[in-house]
């Protein structure tokens, strides 16, 4: 028997596979037993009611998708009353994703959801923020540090910072989050993108632009996960385009302690339980007794460390 458990800071997970925020809900219980998962991660909520963005909210691009769901939210009251109790029936720890328009509102929500039944809080610092001209907190190290400092003070629960790929300063942002007390980094959210219908000449998304997710994002997210694992000492949770056990292994080898599966669940609702099985089988076949043995096992010659912190190509 292969040991699939991993430790994300103080939180032990029975396996490193969990859903990505916004691509998972109670509804998936219709398809398989959610207790199979390493963690449950909810869709981001805000304090108050939000409608979300105009439709169409998704569109297809070459082998991947764009979304501009926005963050429709029924508010924190509904969430605490209706959603948290649902997940209490499971053993799997619940991770609550939150966001706010301002750092203070964000911090208030953070303390409000620090309740029984919640194992960790994922802070989605990759969505637009009105105090920074609509830039996400996680675009700049300074705004990352400021908001994380406030969030850190607002809760004693483990705090996972979810980073954005829409930045040229990934390692610096990662270190800012670590310095401000993040317990883990979720790497990464979607990257801003666009598609236009050439027949109607209208953007394919009602919101003009949206986030790219799915296989196209994987090489970018993997690079970021690697950069974050090298730049910080806190656990990294890889996310972006993961749809197979091979993808999971790529992130673990790069240094991720666990991974989130997002868009792949839309295509194959059973992707996560299947990957968990295949991960155990792969590790067994390759003679590993614990998944921990592959984490960070990338062979990157030390002289190349300098390259790691570049944010440019070629």
């Amino acid at each position, binding site marked *: 028997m292969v040991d699939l458990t991993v430790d994300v800071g103080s939180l032990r997970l029975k396996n490193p596979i969990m859903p990505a925020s*916004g691509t998972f809900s109670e*509804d998936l219980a219709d398809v398989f037993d959610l207790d199979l998962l390493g963690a449950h991660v909810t869709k981001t909520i805000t304090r108050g009611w939000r409608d979300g963005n105009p439709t*169409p909210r998704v569109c*297809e691009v070459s082998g991947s998708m764009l979304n501009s769901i926005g963050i429709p939210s029924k508010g924190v009251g509904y969430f605490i009353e209706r959603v948290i109790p649902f997940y209490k029936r499971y053993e799997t720890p619940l991770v609550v994703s939150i966001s706010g328009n301002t750092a203070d509102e964000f911090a208030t929500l953070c303390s409000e959801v620090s309740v029984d039944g919640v194992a960790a809080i994922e802070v989605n610092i990759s969505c637009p923020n009105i105090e920074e001209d609509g830039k996400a907190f996680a675009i700049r190290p300074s705004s990352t540090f400021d908001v994380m400092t406030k969030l850190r003070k607002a809760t004693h629960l483990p705090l996972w910072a979810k980073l954005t790929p829409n930045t040229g300063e990934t390692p610096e942002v990662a270190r800012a989050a670590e310095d401000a007390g993040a317990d883990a980094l979720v790497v990464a959210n979607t990257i801003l993108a666009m598609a236009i219908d050439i027949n109607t000449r209208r953007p394919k998304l009602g919101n003009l632009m949206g986030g790219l997710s799915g296989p196209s994002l994987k090489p970018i997210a993997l690079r970021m996960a690697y950069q974050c694992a090298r730049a910080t000492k806190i656990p990294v949770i890889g996310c972006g385009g993961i749809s197979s056990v091979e993808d999971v292994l790529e992130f673990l080898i790069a240094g991720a302690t666990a991974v989130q599966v997002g868009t792949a669940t839309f295509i194959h609702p059973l992707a996560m339980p299947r990957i968990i099985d295949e991960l155990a089988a792969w590790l067994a076949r390759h003679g590993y007794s614990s998944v921990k043995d592959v984490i960070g096992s990338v062979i990157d010659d030390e002289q190349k460390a300098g390259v790691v912190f570049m944010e440019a190509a070629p």
Partner: protein
Amino acid sequence: MNAALKLGDVREAIKPVVFERDLQIISNVQVNGEYRQMVLKAPREMLEQCRAGQFFHLLCPQLGGENPYLRRPMSIYGFYPDKGELHFLYKVTGEGTRALAHLGAGDTLNVLGPLGRGFTIADNWQHLVLVARGVGLATLAPLALEANRLGRKLTAICSARSDDVLMSVHYFRSLGANVVTVTDAEGTSSIENLEAIIEGLIAEEGVDAFYTCGSNRILRLLQRIGEKHEIPGEIALEQQMACGLGMCHCCVRPFRKEDRVVNLRVCREGPVFDMQEAMPW
């Protein structure tokens, strides 16, 4: 299952009731210039969960140079637990449906379902009237089967561009439905004519419920007539979908609920909605 999927009850449904399965194709043929019918071999446990108005989310294959990525929602056109068959009726419109059209007998198709909330037929509804246009008939067909099973009277008003694209007339008739066809070609499909036909039905036979899908003009008409005569109704709606399960919130449409406008998910709270709550678009 249907109960479990009803609005508000979602949270109680933690036993797996939705299936992801590779099904074998029995046939996949052109039924007229625009539509194709696909017949799949399906397990009884899956077919027994099906209800009229529900849909499946199909993983269209990468074939013929088409590379669809997301699944495509398709209404259940027919489900036959005894025969072990699941039917779809589809129009080839883009990448996904073009890819579907490439499949042949013996190939497999991965399906997810049944999904969503189907049509209601209340115990005291005796005369049901459905008004459908184009591929909307695919969605309403199993309702006729169900009405037949329950021994209710059904009038199907089928609207189309011209006679040769009138779908399923034969099918509705075979189930003992009264079929009225109206076409653009004959100039009989105008809203005014439809209204006259329906008012006639109400006056002569009485109508207990309306069912429709798709057309905005027909929705407005039925809302108006329904309100006037206090006849309830349901409409099946479409919206772009990613997950099909209720997780992503991409498939919302606005509905009137107790003086507020709320967004509901077509894949979860729908695709069948109360006709008066639906908002023309």
